[in-house]
């Protein structure tokens, strides 16, 4: 076997100016651009989840049961759903539109268990999580076999079907829905009840965000990243596409159900509207306007859009038209939403700062090296920084 000519591998570089200078594998510029960070331990996004929960609690305590507090708490319910959608639609690019259905499973499940079977809030929440997980496993085992567009179409049919089912079922309260759902935490009066229920909702949101961030930053997250870009690539590196698709579907659906349970608990009533296609479009708007890949973005997006749709009569009256147009514009102009646009702007700026810093540091180190050589009377070149 003939050996190829020896080659200097230090010439392999990234693009100028962020890549290292050609032929300078140990130079100062390289030291800066080739920062190797090895983390011995996996990042635990407990801090992020905790921060979201604490900020949410504080905001709701400050709002002290006002109408705005109710709106924000409702937004928190939607935010739990959209956080799951970040993993599904944003990170894994799983085109599934069944979140409103599972939100309905959570809301109706809570309503039925509490009003018909006298479950406590905690019991009904746990039961709803289990119910949604089993339902998502059964539905997901079938629909996630379909790739891309077929999966989107299959899950798009679900809200239509389930909505009809809910409106025709007298057991589910038909068009009136189920009234009298108990709050998570009953206080001495309405204000205290709203604040306390809001605190539980914020804690659930923090937990949901922590779980999603943990998955995205894990090895499984790396696999999801690879298969999201290219499924054949994912398979070729040993990723089980069926397993991962199903897991993402189940996790997204369970979080949607938890969000639904929060909505039922906050509003005290469950109506078929939660299952409608308009509800799914509202969720998509919350995710895409804010930025489908940003957990913080979709939380803020859910709360802001919930506020806009309930506080302005013009928007609430023309909700369908406004949401449709807004979603269309976002998808055409900035598919990564506000968070994507901010990221890009900040990225460009940080790239410029990094390049300037790199040049400045390289020049400084070079000057010092020359000065040191000068002090040694020119030296023999062995001590040259480069």
């Amino acid at each position: 076997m003939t050996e190829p000519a020896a080659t200097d591998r230090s010439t392999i570089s990234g693009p100028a100016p962020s890549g290292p200078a050609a032929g300078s594998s140990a130079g100062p510029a390289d030291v800066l651009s080739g920062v190797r960070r090895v983390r011995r331990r996996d990042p635990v996004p407990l801090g992020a989840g905790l921060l979201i929960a604490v900020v949410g609690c504080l905001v709701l305590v400050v709002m002290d049961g006002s109408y705005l507090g109710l709106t924000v708490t409702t937004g928190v319910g939607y935010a739990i759903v959209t956080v799951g959608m970040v993993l599904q639609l944003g990170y894994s690019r799983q085109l599934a539109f069944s979140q409103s259905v599972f939100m309905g499973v959570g809301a109706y499940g809570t309503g039925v268990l509490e009003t018909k079977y006298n479950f406590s809030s905690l019991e009904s929440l746990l039961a709803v999580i289990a119910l949604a997980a089993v339902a998502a496993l059964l539905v997901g085992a079938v629909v996630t076999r379909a790739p891309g567009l077929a999966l989107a179409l299959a899950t798009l049919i679900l809200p239509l079907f389930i909505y009809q089912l809910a409106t025709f079922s007298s057991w589910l309260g038909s068009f009136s829905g189920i009234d009298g759902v108990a709050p998570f935490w009953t206080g001495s009066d309405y204000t205290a009840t709203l604040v306390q229920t809001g605190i539980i909702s914020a804690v659930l949101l923090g937990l949901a965000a922590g779980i999603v961030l943990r998955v995205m930053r894990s090895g499984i997250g790396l696999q999801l990243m690879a298969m999201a870009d290219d499924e054949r690539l994912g398979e070729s590196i040993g990723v089980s596409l069926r397993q991962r698709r199903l897991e993402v579907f189940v996790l997204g659906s369970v979080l949607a159900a938890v969000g639904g349970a929060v909505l039922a608990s906050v509003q005290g009533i469950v109506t078929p509207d939660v299952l409608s296609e308009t509800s799914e479009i509202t969720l998509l708007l919350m995710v895409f306007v804010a930025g489908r890949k940003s957990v913080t973005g979709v939380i803020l997006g859910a709360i802001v859009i919930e506020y806009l749709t309930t506080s302005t009569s013009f928007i609430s009256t023309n909700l369908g038209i406004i949401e449709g147009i807004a979603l269309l514009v976002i998808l055409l102009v900035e598919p990564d939403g506000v968070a994507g646009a901010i990221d890009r702007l900040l990225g460009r700026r940080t790239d410029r700062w990094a390049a300037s810093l790199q040049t400045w540091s390289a020049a400084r180190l070079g000057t010092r090296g020359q000065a040191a050589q000068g002090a040694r009377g020119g030296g023999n070149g062995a001590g040259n920084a480069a």
Partner: protein
Amino acid sequence: MRETPPEVNANGSSAGSDQPAPGVGPAVLACHDVTKSYGGVLAVDSVSLEVPLRGLFGLCGFNGAGKSTLFNLLAGSVTADSGSVQIDGKDATGWSAMRRARSGVARTWQTVRLAHGRTAVDNVAAACLQNPGQWMLASLWRPQAAPARERAWAALEKLGIGHLGGQLVDGLTLEAQRLTELARAIVSEPTVLLADEPASGLSATQRSVLAEALTTISEDRAVVVVEHDLDMLTSISGHMWAMVEGRLAYSGDVETFRASPVHARLRGIEQA
């Protein structure tokens, strides 16, 4: 070391083409009489070959000769119409690409396939989880990402691009992207690497860097390289296969290949 087989009929016939390639140890990957057709066109026609434990093996042929289809058949990306594939002596004919990858068959593609918007080290780390089939729920308390990234850094450094590990792959040169793909392919310590036109689009200098990397990789595993650059391929390979119209037209040592009519025909096309 196996005995070097005599040059098989190099005029387009595949007679005797199931002779094993010379290398170290038993065949880790083999196919027997695999055939694949697309809409009546035979892309691969009764091809048999064996890939030994270690060494670098070249696979060449005209465009449309069936090289990439053969790679897809070996890696499990497409299913053969007939014939069989063995991995480590086990019948892997019905195995998925995922199962073959987990059994030690790694590959790269003609066009670079990397996850955009992510760093080189993340792209490589995705391929080397200690437990790739781990349940998502279990990843909450055992995320596996940090040890995978450590292995990824080591693989990138082995190929001389450790200093680019932290950069987004979108901004890397084609050469660095190809090496990142190679690092991803070898990071899980596969037994066989199938490299499909890894030098495509690279300059002469970059090709020699790649050739050196492939040679290093082949020191402890089998590497099969599909390549149009015959000079590069014959300079690094210990054994050559050539495909013509879906059939294995040549299987033998490099020196004999250089004197064969298949080589002359390929050269003629290359020069034309």
